[in-house]
């Protein structure tokens, strides 16, 4: 479980995060949604300690990452997996070496054990037979799978995904989303997914948090989104007139 208490962050005069309180449950997919520029990436960067917030606490099962020094952060981060918007695969390494890298760096496993673990993770994301390819030689969807395999190879307690769908076609996006969800349940991970792309990612959200202009504007689950009277959220989820009509029809249909 991750508890976020009163997180604030400004860049010069611009207040990007204006005091966010939210709890992310273990074994669940916790979504953070919001428009581009709402502060999602900044928030996520605070969560994992890449950006130091001006105020507030971020408790990873009662350990506050905001107060940690570089070494303490490094230690906590062994328990963290992260899927980056641009994948961040190491382009000088093959797929297998990418997934193996955390094992090489942080474990004393034998070559055989590492190979087994890497193959297990690649199999888990349905990516076999591409071990010796380089990131530049595979498709965007495959890159996401590799990045996901790498993120889970050390059995993380916490998984962060920044825009897991960006640059993917809708069908591939859903496959990746479902993978994230399955892995979360299967390994009982505290997962946080950030996205502006409602349509695909909403599928997997157990808890949904809507950030608007640097504030936590709304939270609930996907059924509640359909019923919400919150204008900003409505405009975000149902941006076009057509989508608004669909929402009306759905509501009437359900009485």
């Amino acid at each position: 479980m991750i508890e976020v208490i009163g997180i604030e962050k400004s860049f010069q005069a611009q207040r990007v995060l204006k005091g966010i309180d939210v709890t992310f449950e273990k074994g669940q997919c916790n979504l953070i949604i919001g428009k581009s520029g709402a502060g999602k990436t900044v928030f996520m960067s605070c969560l994992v300690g890449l950006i130091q917030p001006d105020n507030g606490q971020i408790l990873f099962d009662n350990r506050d990452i905001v107060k940690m020094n570089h070494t303490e952060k490094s230690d906590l981060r062994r328990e963290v997996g992260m899927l980056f918007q641009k994948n961040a695969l190491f382009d000088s390494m093959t797929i297998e070496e990418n997934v193996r890298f955390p094992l090489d760096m942080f474990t004393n496993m034998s070559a055989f054990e590492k190979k087994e673990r890497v193959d297990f993770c690649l199999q888990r994301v349905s990516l076999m037979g591409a071990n010796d390819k380089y990131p530049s030689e595979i498709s965007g969807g495959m890159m996401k799978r590799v990045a996901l395999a790498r993120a889970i190879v050390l059995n993380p307690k916490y998984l962060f995904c920044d825009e897991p769908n960006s640059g993917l076609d809708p069908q591939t996006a859903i496959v990746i989303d479902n993978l994230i969800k399955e892995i979360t349940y299967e390994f009982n991970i505290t997962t946080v997914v950030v996205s502006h792309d409602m349509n695909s990612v909403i599928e997997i959200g157990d808890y949904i948090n809507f950030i608007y202009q640097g504030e936590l504007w709304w939270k609930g689950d996907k059924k509640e989104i359909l019923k919400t009277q919150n204008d900003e959220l409505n405009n975000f989820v149902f941006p076009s007139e057509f989508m608004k009509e669909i929402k009306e029809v759905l509501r009437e249909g359900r009485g």
Partner: protein
Amino acid sequence: MKLINILDGLGAYLEMIFRMFVKPQKYSMFFREVFRQMYDIGIGSFGIISIVSLFIGAVTSVQFGNKLMNLGIIPMWWMGGMVRDTVILEMAPTITGLLLAGKVGSNIASEIGTMRISEQIDAMEIMGVNTYSFLIAPKVLGAVLIVPALTTLGMFIGIIGGMISGVLGGYFGQDEYIYGLQDDFNGRYMLIMFIKSFVFPFLISSIASFKGYYVKGGALELGKSSTDAVVLSSIAIVFFNFFIAYFLL
């Protein structure tokens, strides 16, 4: 304002140097990176350094030869020692340094800079990797270990280049030159050469790493940071070159 920026940058650079020297998290991975760096620099720059040293040695010899021949009062075998000292003191370490600033400096800056803008450095940090010690330190260490060897190579080839051009130009015979090479040899000059060949690669690799590590933005900024790395490390080299000569000679 400008001065404050420069001091700011210098502070951040020194902080990076300070953070880089910590115990590696995994020695096997660390030394693999060091060897990769030594190999890349060694193999990658071996050819260019040989060619440039050969011709620099050759031209040094021709120019001295011309002057002395006209003067006519100094025995031509002195040339061996003169070319030797010029090559050891200036040509080999400084030319090698400047060549590597261009080649290795831009390589390192763009490699690390690419990792920065494609979030690879963040990815490593999130995994718990200390990227100062894993990405930067092996580059600096690798450069500092291999460049003295390249400089020594450049020195030998430069001296040979001096002999070839001098003999072909009819300034002296091979035996005279070799006799001159052995005459009045000052070990201190070798020491200065080695000091330079440690200091210069340290400057190049650390400045280039710094420029790459802290790049922000996209491809355009990446290109600029790699150019900056070359310019800054070249300036640092000539600057330190002067002070080393001034204080040690």
